[in-house]
């Protein structure tokens, strides 16, 4: 890992992974709050979760059968985002674009 900046040299991986993770956990939070709150709740956290993740839920609704109730679509969206994160990791690994961690032997004191 010497001679490389583990953040700036791999910003494309970190930024994408971070954005996907933030969306994924927001979707899980939206689902959990959706269990406790009514769909038209004025709770501002729930409203913001909905506002941040509405586009993902809209895309996921297109590939989710109508039999799945609307309140469960965020779970499906979270699954697809987790799959995208895994695919991103595997593809970048195949092209050698992931940060490599190399353990250095202990230097004598």
């Amino acid at each position, binding site marked *: 890992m010497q001679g490389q900046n583990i953040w700036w040299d791999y910003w494309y991986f970190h930024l994408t992974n971070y954005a996907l993770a933030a969306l994924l956990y927001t979707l899980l939070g939206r689902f959990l709050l959706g269990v406790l709150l009514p769909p038209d709740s004025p709770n501002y956290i729930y409203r913001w979760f909905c506002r941040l993740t509405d586009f993902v839920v809209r895309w996921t609704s297109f590939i989710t059968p109508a*039999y799945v109730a609307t309140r469960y679509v965020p779970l499906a969206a979270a699954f697809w985002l987790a799959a995208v994160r895994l695919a991103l990791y595997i593809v970048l690994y195949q092209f050698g674009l992931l940060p490599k961690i190399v353990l250095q032997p202990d230097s004598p004191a």
Partner: protein
Amino acid sequence: MQPQNIFVIVLSVCLLNGLLSPYLLVVYLIAPLWLPDYLPMPLELRLYVSSLALSTATLFVSGVPAALYERLSGLGRPTSTAMYIWLVGAIVLSLPSLNRLNASGSGLVGAKLGRSGHGKNPPPGRYIDPSRLRVRPDRDLDGDDGHGL
């Protein structure tokens, strides 16, 4: 058949795929990639979660053709046809598991019961013979009468 009845069959097929799929080992081995680090799990629980993840993936992926059919046909509501498409998708994705189930009779112990299609001599290393499983007693650590420490 009602859509909810078909959905129960779809779920059963997906669970079967999670249990018997040859890709379960792959999902299990790459678990550090998709399982959060803050959930330390024993190996048995990790295998169980891997099976559930595979079942969930089968459920969602097999639902894509059914959802596209609903959207493109402009129905927008669950119909038996869409659910049958979902079921066919789940069965297609579960074909490796079904082949495995068929090849081993009734699961891993099928070979021992002579229902494997290989007679009483299954290929070595492919099946678990329950009669060869032994519970090895713990080593006597205190070295006296074998009643523990």
